[in-house]
């Protein structure tokens, strides 16, 4: 079980968190201007990177805040 460094509460057990998938994927400012293919890309496609990956986490059983961290998917090393 991972220890996740919550930027507000410090390191806590993974059990307190909920994963929110890949991070740094801002909702398009004007969805209406996107083609079906562009919108599908935003909705469904993820990098699934082997290596550093930006991830969204919710400290659900803690401060209740969403935040984004970089996790290396090979060895779980965190960086901000």
């Amino acid at each position: 079980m991972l220890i996740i460094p919550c930027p507000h509460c410090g390191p806590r057990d993974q059990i307190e968190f909920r994963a929110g998938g890949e991070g740094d994927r801002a909702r398009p400012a004007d969805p209406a201007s996107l083609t079906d293919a562009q919108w599908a890309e935003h909705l469904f496609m993820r990098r699934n990177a082997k290596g550093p990956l930006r991830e969204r986490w919710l400290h659900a059983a803690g401060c209740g805040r969403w935040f984004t961290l970089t996790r290396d998917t090979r060895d779980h090393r965190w960086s901000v």
Partner: protein
Amino acid sequence: MRVAQGGARIDRGRTIGFRFDGRRLHGHPGDTLASALLANGVHLVGRSFKYHRARGILTAGAEEPNALVVVGKGALADPHARATVVELYDGLIAQSQNAWPSIRHDFGALIGAAGPLFPAGFYYKTFLGSAKSWTRVFEPAIRRMAGLGPAPTGPDPESYDKVHAHTETLVIGGGVAGRAAALAAMADGRVMLTDERPAIAPLPGIRMLERTTAFGIYDDNLVMAVERVSDHLAPEKRTGPRQRLWQVRARHIVLATGAHQQPCVFPGNDIPGVMLASAALAFLEDYGVLVGRRVVLVGNDAGAERLQAAGADVRLVDEVRAAHGRRHVTAITDGTGQRIACDTVLMAGGWQPAVHLHSHLGGKLAFDAEKHCFVPIEANSRIRSVGAASGHIPRDAPPLPVAGKKAFIDFQNDVTLADIDLATREGFVSVEHLKRYTTTGMATDQGKLSNLNALSRLAHNLGGSPGAVGTTTFRPPYTPVTFGALAAHDRGDFIDPTRVTPLHDWHVARGADFENVGQWKRPRFYPRSGESMDEAVVRECRAVRTGVGLLDASTLGKIDVRGADAATFLELVYANRWAKLAPGKCRYGVMLGEDGMVLDDGVSARLGAEHFLTFTTTGNAARVLDHMEDYLQTEWPHLKVWLQSATEQWAAMVVTGPQARDLLSTIVSDVDLAPDAFPHLAWRSASIAGHPVRLYRISFTGELSFEVHADARFAPAVWHAIVAAGVAFDLTPYGTEAMHVLRAEKGYIIIGQETDGTVGPDDLGLGWAVAMTKPDFIGKRSLTRSNMLRADRRQLVGLRPAERIAEGAQLTLAPADTAMLGHVTSSYPNGHDGRPFALALVAGGRERIGQTLFARFASHAVRCTVGEPIFYDPQGARLNG
């Protein structure tokens, strides 16, 4: 037999009794079941998994593959216990397993003669035939004879505990190396040490856990260990928990787990009386047990003189070509072909460091050709191995394996050298394939005594080194762990919290039948004596349609939305409009996911200019709040909005039916209930029995309805006032089942029943609640994706079936069609007219109104007529009343 030498772990001054397969035997405190059996001359303790070969005690420790027994009886029975680690107590009862009718006369041993039926990969070869031959012939036969101990006969009466601990250093293994490492680590901070054996001498300042097996290491140095707190005591003497699960976070882990001596491979290496040399020495030194008088030692001579000193006649041989004997070894043939009579064969096949824990987090191994074993490669400074576990082991060159009949590699899964050779010939040359095909290393002993020999043989067959072949991956658990320890307190009522409404006691007193909705207990119906569920539901529905009914809807999710931008925020998270909703009014809303699928629905009320109360589906409350928080925090953090769950703060009581207003008017004050003053989809403050309440004119039944919301603390008083006033109106409490029937007749959907994450608002006929003219809202863009505009999307329709149909039934055009047009989402046997009706999602459903479809369930097909998804008061005159 017991001898005068050795015996460091036993108390010779006391004698205790135990039973094995009904025989009454004696041992000493400190004995293991294995040492006590050997002291009594009992070597035959089990039958093997596949061939039902006679098996004895092979080791003296946790790696034992053979001596698996059932300890205890009835609900306390513990199958697959390794006799080598079971501590003896007075009155212990043990039973051999995998033998029928008895261990000495085992029917399955005939299979030994049928060996050719069970070659490597026999799962894939032998059991070919019709499906019937599997279920009727093979499976029952295998179940009867396979090496699976009987399950306990009742729920586990024991208790288990679970603890978390944090430490700077955790040392696993309390031998010489582990103790030295623990003392050295004290300079860095707190130190814990676990050892799987009893009676570990304390080290001052170090937390010592004896009888504790660290069975797995997980991410970020989380070590799971199970402490056998009272397994060593007779059941009647156990006061605390039986076992305790430790979850230890350690900054540094030191693995001092030792090494396992490996068996030699030769025909008959599994006959009782053939065991590891190290085991024979352990039985002598720890328990004062000499395992035999006429001993043949193969591999090396370590310990020979100690056995001799204890009275054994020890012969050293370089090679054993075969061991002979059926229930016990009687002789061997040595490398020169000479037959040597003996009662014991001791194998010294080299040592393999116990690298299992090292491997759990992906630690790599290197093959040490000189020592012929795999040693751990240090991956980081946070987990390191010391002592024998790191490869500090004697440099024994193991004897070469000897091919022939029944030369075993994996004792627990009955995999022979010939099986490995066959698998290689058949092309299973990857170590992972070899493992799966032959099942070597896949038994409960996790290959502690078989992996090295199997890999070595594979490498030999391929003409390479075991280092090039590599190893399979060791995974937790190191030794089997009871489910009881993993569950600990989380069983029965403690598996999950139970949520009850403030009115729960009344429902119980009223004899309600409850159903679980998420964690909530909700009254399903209130049966009168002798009434079936169907009868009760018909009665409750009729009361609501013709008189007045009362429902506890307190479980309804409630989210308090406040702030200057509250309306703007709701405009974004709901598909419909909110900005112009006046305070004092309510509106039905549909919430979509970004993919355009319906996520939730419900009514929201505007309490003030900057204050809304949003109602969610009972089971969806937390999810909806999370969804809203997510967007608020991450997409629109500039909005001034605060969200707060209010589900448990407000109890909700639904008074519904043609007489609802008449009833409430006798107890409600401070409000005008007249239809003009208080229309449908409005809310008003009022008071009942002196308590402030909010009344909402929201209807989920299609009848005139008032939802009475009261502070949870005063809810029972308000409920009792309604019930008391209801006597004159024959007020009928109704449950969720009647609620479902009443709403389905009106075509009101239930999230999770009519929706499954693939259903859009238009599919449900809720297009009217979607404001496409808004510049943006969650899911808007997805509603115009080409897939959402297909004419053959599944749409909500009503069905009139000829008889009751099953929810989930598939719908087809003809009774025998295989092309499925949709499925039944809700189905009820009795509508207001006494006829069955259903809701369904059907491809292009709205175009099919008037058509006949068939609802298929199993082999049954029921004719249904497709109609609008509304069966009662389509104009809505009643709810506006």
